[in-house]
Structure formats: structure tokens, C-alpha cells
């Protein structure tokens, strides 16, 4: 079965530190890739997504992610975190079907909690 792995359960950083959150998926076919974020007390929202083209994707609030097909990875990065980045981050994958279109659901990882100390 397809799965998404986020290796870090909880990451604690100081402001201005660099961030990299790992995400790996298990699926041999073509995928669409997403990062969603949930700020404290708020609903999940899209941070960035990749489905074709440049494997380096830029999202909101200075976040970026790089799709490395050979490693089945889509790691999230930010050069300098802020206290306001404290949130839970979820990686998600949807599967592209062989003859076009995509499987309906998104498969999510277990999430990584990021705590940024001021």
C-alpha cells in the first residue's frame, strides 16, 4: 500500500535557524506532492504543491520544497524560521493514474510539529 513517511515527529528550533523537514513516499508511479500546514487553533491549509515542471517549488511564507524522484522525497525547507512558523506540517501525496487523471484521495503523513523558540 502507498504510504507517506515523515521522519521527524517534533522539531524544536531557535528563530533564524534553518529548517528541513523530511518526507518520503512509497509509490513507483507518478505522483502529485503537497505540504499542508496547521497553525495552532487554525484549520489545515496548503503551503505548496508540485505536480510537474521545476522540481524546486516555492510556497508561501518563504517555504520551498524539492522533489527528488530518485529518492522518493519531497523535503520542506526554509532558510530562516520565525516564531510564527510554529505549527504542524503535513506532507501528502496523490497518485497519478496511468491513463491520465489522478486518484481522488490524498495520502497524508503523520505530521511534524515544529516549535520555534523566540
Amino acid at each position, binding site marked *: 500500500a502507498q504510504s507517506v513517511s515523515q521522519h521527524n515527529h517534533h522539531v524544536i528550533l531557535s528563530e533564524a535557524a534553518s529548517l528541513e523537514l523530511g518526507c518520503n513516499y512509497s509509490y513507483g508511479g507518478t505522483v502529485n506532492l503537497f505540504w*499542508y500546514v496547521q497553525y495552532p487553533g487554525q*484549520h*489545515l491549509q*496548503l503551503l505548496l504543491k508540485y505536480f510537474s515542471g521545476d522540481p524546486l517549488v516555492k510556497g508561501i511564507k518563504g517555504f520551498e520544497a524539492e522533489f527528488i524522484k530518485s529518492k522518493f522525497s519531497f523535503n520542506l525547507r526554509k532558510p530562516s524560521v520565525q516564531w510564527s512558523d510554529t505549527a504542524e506540517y503535513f506532507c501528502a501525496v496523490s497518485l497519478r493514474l496511468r491513463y491520465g487523471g*489522478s486518484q481522488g*484521495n*490524498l495520502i*497524508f503523513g503523520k505530521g511534524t510539529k515544529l516549535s520555534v523558540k523566540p
Partner: protein
Amino acid sequence: GAGVSQSPSNKVTEKGKDVELRCDPISGHTALYWYRQRLGQGLEFLIYFQGNSAPDKSGLPSDRFSAERTGESVSTLTIQRTQQEDSAVYLCASSLGAPSWRELFFGEGSRLTVL
């Protein structure tokens, strides 16, 4: 409102009772998803509706779980004979439709506690 609306926001019930959770998607969104998030776990896919197509029920964990959607609007997730392991936050999301590279817009969730 402009966003996905879910009700109730909190529900406490006794083991064995039935519960209904409601989701009102963003107007015009043809796709609707239900996910479950248990404490410390990721989002677990339950069911997906897309327009008038047959729903993808492949994530429903047992026959105690069912969901309906009226046209392209409100959806209800029903859990019969609730068990303690059903305690979780149930999240609803909607999107403009297939294919699934479109952004999902999530509601605040319904937190279910089964005593």
C-alpha cells in the same frame, strides 16, 4: 460563510450510540473528502465524493461508518454503535474537483469523544 463548515465542533457520546457529523463545503466545490485524525496520528482517508460519481469508500474502517452527500452540497458522516477507538477529530475538506492536484480546503473539524 466562505469556508468549509463542520458541525458539531465537539461531540461527546457514550459507547454504542450513533453519531452524525455534518460538513458544508465551499459553494461550487464538487469534490468532498472526509479524513480522521487520531491523537498523534496523521490524517486517515475515509471517503471521497466527486460530483455525481460513485464515492470512493475505500478508507471507511468498518461497516459502522457511512457517509452521504446531497448533490454537490452537504455531506453527513454517520458512525453507528460508536466505540472508544472512534475517538478522533473528523476533518472534512472540499476542492474544485478532480483531479486531485487541486488544493483541498479544510474545515475546523469535529472532535468526537466516545466514553
